[in-house]
């Protein structure tokens, strides 16, 4: 199998990369390529020109300023699996990273690449939505802008990135005491999720955020479910179950009975796991 012909450029700096993206609307960015290359090989997508950003140092670093952690777009799943900024999120990022595909894929695949592709079953969009993260997008002429995850994730394979923009880093509020839960259903280990729910319970002024993916569009917050967990501590299991069901039906258009059960299972399991952490 071979992809159709394309041109290949590897800019030496971020500004060169941004200029290339500004000047050529048909250009496709490649980072780790672990989703893009299979898609090109299978010819489910095509590219005229690949702009390889995988060597750009400006996108590789991370920084913890005590309030937020900034993670460069090129940080790999494997680096996070191996414990990068583990404490800042009480192990949540590490847990999510370790279950993405397989180690040989995690060694190449990047955080920014996963977000920019916005696969409807990908792990990072749901995780970062639950953590209330945002992304920084840069362009040649307009500098940088920050986009909250809710606005960034638009639909399946669709983000708020505009033509000429590049996702350069992700900014995540630190949650060293986070009580979280993750539940994922896959047909085989390492496959994309049929359903993935990530719950991060509220703490002080921070609200609970339960995110679900594996749905028709892209990762979405479950508003009723998150609200009940914060506002109604005495809510019965039946009330919570009804809120979960209403949320699923709202975010997953044409949900099948299997999908509904599957999502219900992951959401409930993630919440139970999150609640099992001692306060």
């Amino acid at each position, binding site marked *: *199998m071979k992809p159709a012909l394309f041109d*290949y450029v590897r800019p030496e700096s971020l500004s060169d990369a941004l200029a290339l993206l500004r000047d050529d609307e048909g250009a496709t960015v490649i980072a780790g*390529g672990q989703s893009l290359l299979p898609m090109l090989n299978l010819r489910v997508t095509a590219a005229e020109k690949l702009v390889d950003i995988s060597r750009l140092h400006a996108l590789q670093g991370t920084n913890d300023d005590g309030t937020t952690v900034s993670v460069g777009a090129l940080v790999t799943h494997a680096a996070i699996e191996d414990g990068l900024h583990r404490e800042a999120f009480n192990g949540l990022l590490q847990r999510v990273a370790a279950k993405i595909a*397989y*180690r*040989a894929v995690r*060694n*190449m695949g990047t955080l920014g690449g996963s977000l920019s592709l916005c696969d409807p079953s990908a792990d990072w969009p749901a995780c970062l939505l639950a953590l209330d993260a945002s992304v920084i997008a840069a362009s040649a002429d307009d500098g940088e802008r920050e986009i909250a995850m809710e606005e960034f994730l638009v639909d399946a394979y669709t983000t708020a990135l505009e033509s000429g923009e590049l996702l350069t880093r992700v900014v995540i509020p630190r949650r060293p005491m986070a009580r979280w839960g993750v539940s994922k259903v896959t047909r*085989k280990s390492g496959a994309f999720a049929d359903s993935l729910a990530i719950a991060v319970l509220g703490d002080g002024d921070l609200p609970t955020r339960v995110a679900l993916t594996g749905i028709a569009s892209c990762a979405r917050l479950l508003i009723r479910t998150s609200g009940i967990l914060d506002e109604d501590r005495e809510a019965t299991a039946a009330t919570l179950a009804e809120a979960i069901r209403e949320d699923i039906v709202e975010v997953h258009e044409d949900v099948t009975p299997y999908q509904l059960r599957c999502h219900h299972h992951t959401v409930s399991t993630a919440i139970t796991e999150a609640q099992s952490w001692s306060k």
Partner: protein
Amino acid sequence: MVEVTLTINGEEETVVIDARDSLSDLLREKLNLTGTHVGCDHGACGACTVHLDGTPVRSCIVLAARCECSDILTIEGTRNDAITDVVRRHFHDKHALQCGFCTPGMLMMAVDIIRRYRVPSEEQVRAELSGQICRCTGYMGIVNAIVAAADELDGQRATA
């Protein structure tokens, strides 16, 4: 056409390739290193696993052009490697291969598993191997071989 210079099994090579060539294309078709097997060509089977700058990757979904200045280790480069030799011997002893198609990828992955876990449990080996497909279903033997090789290598370290 793109010219790439990279190190393969300790030797510097300069190769002219198509931009769309994968690392597995470069290895097999330009350098005749056919020990790297290509099963699925879209990153699903793990047969083509090689080490890129010290970590395992799937060479069928890595662009050859991005490997400029990289250090690649293929199964051919492990011929006299002390650790791989131990793993290889245990693969033989435990009947960890039948047709042998997946074996180069299995060995490249096994060495990385032992490097990261030192003495992995059977459960850890199984989880880590989930991306390597063997269609002769030799998993029992493969898992046993990696666990046994890790134990032997750990014993060597203890007595060293």
